[in-house]
């Protein structure tokens, strides 16, 4: 497949004697939305940690956009164009929403070590930050302390931070967890919209969302991918039904 942007080859991770990821193979197309599902403890978040540099693989390859990124630092991987969100909200809780997003927006502008310019004077960064806030419906919250917002607003902020660097690949780890139905519907639309022209790998437990937004789905059970395919193929896969979906989807 020539259009592959991220591929995992026989990826393994052990913690001491415990083999958590036991040979995962996965190809992510440059413009597809790909969901990662599986029962609790299957290792979905661990795979995300391996891809994003939070953990070092025990063996196997992770190739992103022609670079072997297995074991590289999170900041290197991010700069290559891969950005992620976290299952447990991971923001700057005592800073304002605007400040949270601005920190995320600044990096691609190369302002990492700049102490000869004033950040408030940078119109481009301000505009981009404001645009992101509008995109996730937080424009009225610019001066609110991020940690004081509702849980779902914090999740929206986290998605906006993930988008800030205009990445080629986005990893979202349970972005809808803890959201109401209305918020989930909005966030699903949002994810569809903002992932136009990029690849998305998403872990989500809301099956309705998974089947509606994904082009393809991979099922992870006990550290192995037992099936990959379109939503219809996964729905009708006997192995998947047995291992995970059960009556939830057939009903």
């Amino acid at each position, binding site marked *: 497949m020539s259009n592959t942007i991220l591929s995992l080859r026989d990826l393994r991770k052990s913690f001491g004697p415990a083999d958590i990821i036991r040979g995962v193979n996965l190809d992510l197309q440059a413009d597809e939305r790909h969901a990662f599902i599986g029962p609790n403890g299957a290792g979905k978040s661990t795979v995300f940690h391996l891809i*994003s*540099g*939070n953990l070092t693989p025990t063996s196997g390859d992770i190739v992103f956009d022609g670079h072997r990124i297995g074991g590289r*630092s*999170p*900041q290197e991987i*991010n*700069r290559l164009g891969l*950005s*992620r969100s*976290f299952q447990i909200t*991971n*923001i*700057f*809780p*005592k*800073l*304002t929403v605007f*400040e949270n997003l*601005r*920190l*995320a927006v*600044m*990096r*691609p502008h190369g*302002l*990492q*070590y*700049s*102490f*000869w*310019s*004033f*950040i*408030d004077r*940078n119109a481009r960064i301000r505009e981009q930050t404001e645009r992101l806030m509008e995109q996730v419906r937080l424009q009225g919250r610019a*001066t*609110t*302390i991020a940690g004081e917002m509702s849980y779902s607003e914090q999740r929206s902020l986290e998605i906006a*931070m993930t988008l*800030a*660097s205009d990445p080629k690949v986005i990893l979202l780890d349970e972005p809808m967890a803890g959201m109401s139905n209305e918020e989930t519907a909005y966030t699903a639309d949002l994810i569809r919209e903002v992932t136009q022209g990029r690849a998305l790998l998403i872990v989500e437990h809301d099956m309705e969302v998974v089947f509606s937004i994904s082009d393809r789905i991979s099922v992870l059970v006990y550290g192995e991918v037992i099936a990959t395919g379109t939503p219809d193929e996964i729905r009708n896969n006997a192995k998947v039904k047995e291992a995970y979906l059960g009556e939830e989807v057939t009903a």
Partner: protein
Amino acid sequence: MKTRIVLVGAGVALLLAAPLLLSQGLVNAAIQMLIAALFACAYNLLCGQAGMLSFGHAAYFGVGAFATVHAMNAIGGTGLLPTPLLPLAGAVGGLGIGAIAGWFATQRTGTYFAMITLAIAELLHALAPHLKGLFGGEAGVSAMRMPALGLTFGSSTQVYYLTLVWVLVSIALLYLYTQTPVGRLTLGLRENGHRLRFLGYDVHKLSVLVFAISAMFSGVAGGLQVINNEAANYVLFDPSLSAAVVLNTYIGGVKVFLGPALGAALMTFFGYAISDLTQSWLLYQGILFVLVMMFMPAGLAGMVGTSSTLRKRYGAAALAPAFVLALLAALCLSCGGAFVVEMLQRMFSQDYRALASANAAMPSPPITLFGVAWSPASVITWLVPASLLAIGGAMAYFTRQRLQALDSQHATGAATANQPHVATTRSAA
């Protein structure tokens, strides 16, 4: 914003006029206060803004001091730089050693970071007396301020102005730093360094940078100290200096930019004014620190912020009685506390014990305190501080009641408009 500019302007004007108003001794104290204020501001960049609690910042103050003293003595005593520029040597020394120490210390965070900074400072403290060439052994290194630019730097007033210019410029630079991209990132470092990595930032490099800048300005403070004292000794590396800057910074308040400067200036002044009056100054310093941490963890500057928030919410008129009550409570409690401390200190002093055992007929001779002779065996003596403490405690209790009453009135009266809160939290940040 406007009131802030006016306040800063007034403060600077007052500092400029200070030598005209103060005695020679107070000018010397003012120099110490300015140096301590700069040191605390430099420290707060690391501690308050970047969230890295260093327990060994005396190291960079000391390195700056020794770099400056050697620069003064360079080229046969004429000095590497003209006298007004000498603190630059301290800056370079602080920056260099800070970058090296920071590279190691910032490999870890939290407690481990604190322990590494402590170890580095102790290393320098232990090494310094043995490296006679560099640190002058027990005696230290002395130097002379050379005349430059038509100024002799012979009087305290001239040294005061030299110190003032350096401190104001340094604090201004530290403030401007907070407005730059890297200054904002520093706050991100405090809040969530882990997230910064996943936004593409090299957190270790950033931490070393912040550490080195903090050490650089600490070095300037050390350099100013040497220019003032014309000597440097390995005692500069003493852990008590590292502890003092932590206490000053927290007493002043880490969340407000000028808080640490305020705390350091006040504590230095008290140290100067009170250490002649009492032998228990360190005890008072400790009590003050504990009280601040217990009852107003945002520090003195944080208290100013809180009271202005309250004033906006309830109005000055409604708040005035509570404010007066709080002031009286503080006064009564400090008088009562000071009475007890001073009385006990005298009672347990060796002189007094010797006096008491010498005269068997009078086992507890009276003690003179605040111009009155008190008998330690008499109940009345102890009733004085006890009643002061009781009255103070009661007034503190009523202040609290009063504030709670205001709060519940406000909650029922204006449940609709709760917006000012947002504005105040932003200005505090």
